[in-house]
């Protein structure tokens, strides 16, 4: 997530002395930064070091690039990456299609229901994820509630098998389990927009789509950016949903990492895979950040 860094002037009225200019950042940043260095950068550094090694902790080891070349040259991984990209992207788009209007309703239309609805959204995120996936199976299954309901009203005679155990159900489960983190940043950025702007746009004769594209979208771009980082990136590494509702399809990159690390005990390959995914996430963040800035700048 982009931790916002704004151009903020120093707080104190007087120009701080040289010493305090050095000490004040230290006072605030030394503790959090040391925690990050010690418990995040060092462990990740070890892991990245592993990704350039063969052998493991106790056995023979040495420098190698094969972990990376194996992954990059393997058409299988490209195919899995492509599947993952499709599933994650469709799930993200589905969430934006539902999430942006929902955020809009919450921000401008919900009135006194605004707060309870928001809280409900947060709470939806709190249930044990495993148990929640089983609930979806109960809904979408061959003898699940949806099929039973459709059959009892006579719409269908044979249960629809295609509701569960395919990419569709993976997308449904993924979209619903991340929706909270999509809606809330977008909602938050909408709250900062003066609703009067829309009136003005309408007075000038803009239709709803023009208003949305020219007025609202540029203003909520930062919120969408945060939503993308919080949701789109983790979608690539999820493995519980594909395992439990993916059936014979929907094998994703998250499954690859967990199979490499857990089944093969191949930490080096697992580390290399994660390192590549981290790079991709970084690259993506960079692009998304630039885009959200361009959008804002276009205003």
């Amino acid at each position, binding site marked *: 997530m982009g931790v916002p860094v704004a151009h903020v002037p120093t707080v104190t009225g007087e120009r701080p002395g040289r010493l305090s200019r050095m000490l004040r950042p230290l006072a605030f940043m030394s503790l959090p930064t040391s925690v990050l260095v010690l418990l995040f950068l*060092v462990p990740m*550094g070890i892991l990245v070091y592993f990704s350039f090694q063969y052998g493991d902790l106790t056995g023979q080891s040495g420098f190698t690039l094969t972990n990376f070349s194996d992954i990059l040259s393997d058409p*299988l991984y490209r195919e899995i990456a492509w599947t993952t990209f499709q599933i994650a992207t469709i799930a993200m788009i589905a969430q934006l299609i539902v999430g942006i209007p929902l955020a809009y309703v919450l921000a401008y239309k919900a009135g006194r229901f605004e707060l309870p609805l928001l809280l409900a959204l947060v709470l939806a995120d709190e249930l044990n994820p495993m148990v929640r996936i089983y609930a979806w199976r109960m809904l979408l299954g061959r003898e699940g509630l949806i099929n039973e309901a459709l059959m009892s009203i006579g719409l269908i005679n044979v249960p629809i098998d295609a509701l569960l155990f395919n990419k569709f159900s993976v997308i449904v489960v993924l979209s619903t389990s991340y929706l909270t983190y999509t809606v809330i940043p977008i909602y938050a950025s909408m709250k900062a927009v003066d609703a009067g702007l829309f009136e003005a746009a309408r007075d000038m004769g803009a239709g709803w789509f023009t208003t949305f594209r020219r007025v609202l979208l540029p203003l909520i771009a930062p919120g969408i950016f945060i939503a993308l980082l919080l949701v789109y990136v983790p979608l690539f590494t999820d493995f519980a949903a594909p395992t439990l509702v993916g*059936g*014979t399809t929907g094998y994703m990159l998250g499954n690859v990492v967990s*199979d490499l690390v857990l*089944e093969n005990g191949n930490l080096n390959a697992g580390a290399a895979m994660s390192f590549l995914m981290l790079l991709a996430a*970084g690259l993506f*963040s*960079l692009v998304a950040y630039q885009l959200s800035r361009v959008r804002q700048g276009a205003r």
Partner: protein
Amino acid sequence: MKHLKKLTILIALLAAIPVLAACGSDSGTTEEATAPTQAEADKPATGTLRLFAYDDTVTDEQLNPFRKANPDVDLKIATFNSNEEAAAKLAGGFEADVVEVCLDEAEPLLQREQLRPIDTSGITDWNDLEFRDQPQVRQNGEVIMIPLSAGPYGIIYNTEEIPEGVESYEQMFSDEFAGKIAVEGSSSVAPLGVAALTLGFEDPFNMDSEQLEEAKQFLIDHQDDIRSYPDSDSDMVNLFKTGEVVVANGGRGTAQDMQAEGLPVEWVAPTEGTWSWICGLGITSKAQNTDAAYKLLNFYASPEAQAISATNGFVITNPKAEPLVPKKYKQTSNPASIEGSIPLTQPDDMAAYTKAWQEVRTG
């Protein structure tokens, strides 16, 4: 987000320094632990004993007699959900005194020298134990685990949907049950092994690359017939209960679980053959309390503890426990019930199996 670029440079710099990995930690010992003398063995255990095992191996029901006999020992338990997780965790440096080892998972532990030889003279019932002569029980001639339980792996089918029964894997994969088949998929070995047996290969766990290719293709060809690859027992039970599948490959223990819950299922040994998992306990190279570890191993091998294990539906390894086993479990706990089964072991080329399985899952 320019800073991310800098971040990667920093990480790369950090990585260039072979920081802590070079320091290495003492990797423990592979020296044999001397078994306690008879006098010591009779005294209750003391100190802390760390046990890392499957959840069903360490139930209170199973362990309470040990706790009662050794009130002073501080027994610490960590559980895992699959042997793979356990191996990864141990590989990462997790420490325990006693660890559950299944024959199909011993290899990675041995490669990393995480098990130490066991002095079998310290195990009272050693010479009675079934499977003690399985090749994987020994490493370089030394015993590295005490086999304690086993279970066969075959076909589970719904008796209401398929009253005439299923006899073979070939029949399971026939068009008759298309869309209502589950293939257990928590690891690559089970699904590829089932395909291998169906295709008539001798050794499902050491297929050559051609056979592996064929087994892979077999699963891909049947992709549309298979409803799901369940990842755990509860996943499998759920599939049967919800009517998603009517036939699957699976363990006899799983079928017994389902029967206990009132599901109309039956387990059969398919005509193509069965395999059987065999699990037991080993002492880790980093074990600190070997005295207590030997006491725990002795307890698990004792007739009393074995009889409790039998009520899980497992095959037990100490024949002396037979009179203590409740009647209901006499047949399933008898090692004769898995005679002729192929012992489930880890393929030599595990990476090839994983790769093939990934290709199946990608379609």
